């Protein structure tokens, strides 16, 4: 499983990269991958999203430089932005992991283990619409997955040092009144995204029984 921390990457470019890697993986030209990165401010709408869940007006969105995109992952509306660690595992679930719910559970397990390493007792919630990872009744990480012939794209978004006020402008995951939190808010520490990225790699490898192979961002995006 190739991995790299790619720094800040535009949402559309990350979609193109994921699709490229997926097709190359299907053709047997590249290894599976875990892309780790952060996005500039953006609200994304999953397949089940309702535009009404974006509460902010277009003026506000423009003034703060926030884009809105529709995409082909499961789930509803969410926010990505600086300080949030986004992980896109491009894994082939053939032949032994062909179970969508198990895949979601495994991703949650990765996040629970990562959070345990920064001292947080996180709880995976697997009941729709609360699917995600929660700490003390607040949501810290969101999931949204796309599977094409059992190859995965999209993934998870973990709030590390995220400016949580951006979530106030949407109804995250379509759940009214959900409170979002972040590692920084809960621990009072500003951990670099790279550190959490490394933990994500370690635990993804453990949970999915993959061997991690570090790549430069140039290699991974080639």
């Amino acid at each position, binding site marked *: 499983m190739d991995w790299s921390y790619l720094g800040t990457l535009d949402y559309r470019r990350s979609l193109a990269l994921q699709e490229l890697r997926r097709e190359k993986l299907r053709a047997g030209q590249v290894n599976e991958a875990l892309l780790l990165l952060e996005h500039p401010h953006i609200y994304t709408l999953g397949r089940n999203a309702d535009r009404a869940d974006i509460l902010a007006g277009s003026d506000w969105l423009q003034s703060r430089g926030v884009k809105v995109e529709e995409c082909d992952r*499961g789930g509803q509306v969410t926010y990505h932005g600086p300080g949030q660690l986004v992980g896109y595992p491009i894994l082939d679930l053939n032949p032994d992991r062909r*179970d969508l*719910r198990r895949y*979601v559970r495994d991703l949650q397990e990765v996040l629970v283990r990562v959070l345990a390493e920064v001292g947080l007792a*996180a709880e995976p919630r697997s009941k729709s619409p609360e699917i995600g990872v929660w700490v003390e009744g607040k949501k810290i990480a969101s999931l949204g997955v796309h*599977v094409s012939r059992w190859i995965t794209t999209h993934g998870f978004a973990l709030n590390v040092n995220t400016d949580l006020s951006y979530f106030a402008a949407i109804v995250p995951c379509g759940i009214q009144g959900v409170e979002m939190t972040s590692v920084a808010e809960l621990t009072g520490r500003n951990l670099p995204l790279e550190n959490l990225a490394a933990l994500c790699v370690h635990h993804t490898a453990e949970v999915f029984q993959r061997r991690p192979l570090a790549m430069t961002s140039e290699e991974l995006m080639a």
Partner: protein
Amino acid sequence: MATEVIMPEMGESIAEGTITKWLVQVGERVERDQPLFEVSTDKVDAEIPSPASGTLLVVHHGEGATVQVNELVAIVGEPGEQPETQSVAAPAGVEAPVVEASEPVEAAVEQPVLVAESAPTQEVVVGEDSQLVDRIRQFSSPLVRKMAAAEGVDLSQIQGTGIHGRVTKQDMQGYLERRSAAPPSTVAPPPAAPASPMRTAEVVTAARRASVGDFQVAAYHEGDNVEIEPMSNIRRLTASHMVYSKATSAHVSTVFHVDLSRVAKVRARAKQGFAQTHGTKLTFMPFIFKAVANALTAFPNLNSSIDGTNIVHKKDINLGMAVALDWGLLVPVIRHADRLNLVGLAKTANDLAERARSKRLSPEEVQGGTFTVTNPGVFGSLFGTPIINQPQVAILGIGAIEKRPVVVNDDDGNDTIAIKTMCYFALTFDHRLVDGAEADSFMNHLRRTLLEETWSELDSFQ
């Protein structure tokens, strides 16, 4: 030839998917493996590829429709071609729904019976081997179960090649082919001729073996004043499980008197603030779960299973909590209990109990437990000797929590009688794997944690 497109299997316990988008329109050409439509289930969006090249002739379910696994979704073929009517995939409506969304757990429990009801002429074994049979049935798709019912096949007789030994459609077809090739075995096997006269000891052994299993007591006699009521499914499964457990494990119980005075004090101080802050009540159970999880970490043998002559060490600590309901007993599971703090344990436990009562648990929430805690104390029991929840190797019963006079030794070395909040903890363990010394060490660990832990995470509640 026209090819049917069915809703594919997307994983265990996923019975249906919602079609979110058709990527190809009726009349358009599609290549084999080209994404045909998208399905959404929970947080996952999946592309379903076309099983064949051709033209999309018929679409049975539009966007937004929720479709059962293995149900017919569309037909791909050549223009003008008549879709085949003879098909294994049942059209919508004929297939019994596998899991009712409103009552997932009940539905999962009832699954084996749905098979029986849909094929009344077919004898379905639910008796002695129901555990195994149920499991194999649950792991088979509705299509396979339907084929089995139609063909009068006992699924447990087929070697499954699917995930977890699941019987696949191919297995079923192979079995049916082999069966039709082999001559029907209607002829009774010839009586075994005694090759040589048995020696006396063998005769005696054989006789004894026969007599033990044969002993039965009739539940009632002809003419007795009785009324017969069939067991509910949950009752029947519980009954089978209990007898199976007793026959499997070497049950031994040990009882400890546990001082919960400190827990009671901390709880009394924190419970109001806790309820206000976290919106859920703070009972004694989260403290006990926390202490149990700690003790299991220290004594992992009690968090394992036996598989033949192997010991299966369970790396996760998933605590089953028995919930008594009007209609039976359910044991939802607190996953990774060792990673949750008191808040997490309280919330999870209260949520599971609440949803168990309102029949809103999903099937996976009652699976995968590695150790069980049961609480007969709420009914006033001082202690009981619970039966192990298979395939686990131990179960802890919590007796009534009450103030009792206890002899304590004061600072000056004088004996005095104090009022303490006390409780009997009864551990039943499987002596095949756990010896008494280890079980008692586990219990001492548990007792010490509850006696000494200061529960500083609740310090903010004064």
